[in-house]
């Protein structure tokens, strides 16, 4: 375990992101991302649990920009088939980051499958994602993210996190169409 909660991990990731597009999974991750670094290039996926990886794949296939998906372990179990589709296409501009706190954090931290029997890095490898890294040390997060962002092959990072929320994080105060419109402008820019 990295000893960090998801908020701290998102901070480390966003420290390195300049012009990449970011697709963020539902719930607390969106709220944390908004507080850490709101920008038009963030797509806050406020509904449709599980879809962040699929949205990121479609964006990466249709755009030349780097696309980073900030995802969760339970969301990936919910849409595990997306690993097959990502492994079929493996766009070189896609970085899929799963912050794995082994819990359904947004619904009360019920234990998730990764706490017991699912290893998402192995799922990604079995689906032929070309570069898969399991990150278990806090000091490895920044180098792993940096390498994935600089690469021209698809990367999946599974970053182990502690359970926990930061105080003072609130809802994303943006309308859905506003999020979409400014995001589409950032894609086009």
């Amino acid at each position: 375990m990295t000893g960090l909660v998801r908020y701290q991990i998102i901070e480390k990731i966003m420290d390195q992101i300049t012009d990449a597009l970011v697709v963020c999974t539902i719930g607390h991750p969106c709220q944390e991302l908004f507080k850490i670094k709101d920008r038009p290039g963030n797509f806050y996926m406020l509904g449709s649990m599980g879809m962040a990886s699929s949205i990121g794949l479609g964006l990466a296939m249709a755009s030349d920009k780097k696309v980073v998906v900030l995802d969760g372990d339970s969301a990936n179990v919910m849409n595990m088939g997306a690993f097959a589709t990502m492994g079929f296409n493996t766009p070189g501009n896609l970085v899929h980051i799963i912050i794995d706190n082994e819990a359904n954090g947004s619904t009360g931290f019920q234990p998730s499958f990764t706490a017991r029997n699912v290893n998402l890095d192995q799922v990604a490898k079995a689906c032929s994602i070309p570069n898969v890294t399991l990150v278990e040390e806090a000091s490895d997060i920044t180098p792993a993210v940096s390498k994935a962002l600089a690469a021209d092959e698809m990367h999946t990072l599974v970053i182990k996190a502690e359970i926990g929320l930061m105080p003072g994080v609130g809802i994303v105060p943006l309308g859905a169409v506003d999020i979409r419109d400014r995001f589409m402008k950032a894609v086009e820019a």
Partner: protein
Amino acid sequence: MTPTDQLYERLRASGLDFFVSVPCKLLDGLLGRLRGDDDILYTPVSREEDGVGILAGAYMAGRKPALVMQNSGFGNSVNAVCSLLNYFEIPVIFVISHRGSTGEPVEAQKGMGDAVTGVMAASGVSTLSIDHPDQLPRIDSAIAAAFSEGRSLGILLPFSFWEAS
């Protein structure tokens, strides 16, 4: 031209340029045409809901997206349709083989075949049933309206369409 070839030509002429699919026996010929088309982006998807997500991403990158599938796939997609496509006003064109329609040999297809139009209506997706290839010109204005209004559209293709000569 076969119904499949007429459908393919019409979909391409309407400007659709990013296709994903889940197979159906009735769609086999169309999927072959899509696989061989170098002027579009195309991928098979694991499940229809996965396809909805991919197409939402493609739309936000400026593409005109379509999901080719059986009607059963709409049942697999309802939450993503309502809380992703409708919520963010992202239009996707669903090109649907309507299993369970008159002529269906597989009894298990009847349940979703009967339900699909109502499920789509309840999900805020308008439908257009093309019962014969002669009706294909009707999809042009429906697709154009879907993109201009930011709402998704289902094009239902029952057995009568595929079996027309």
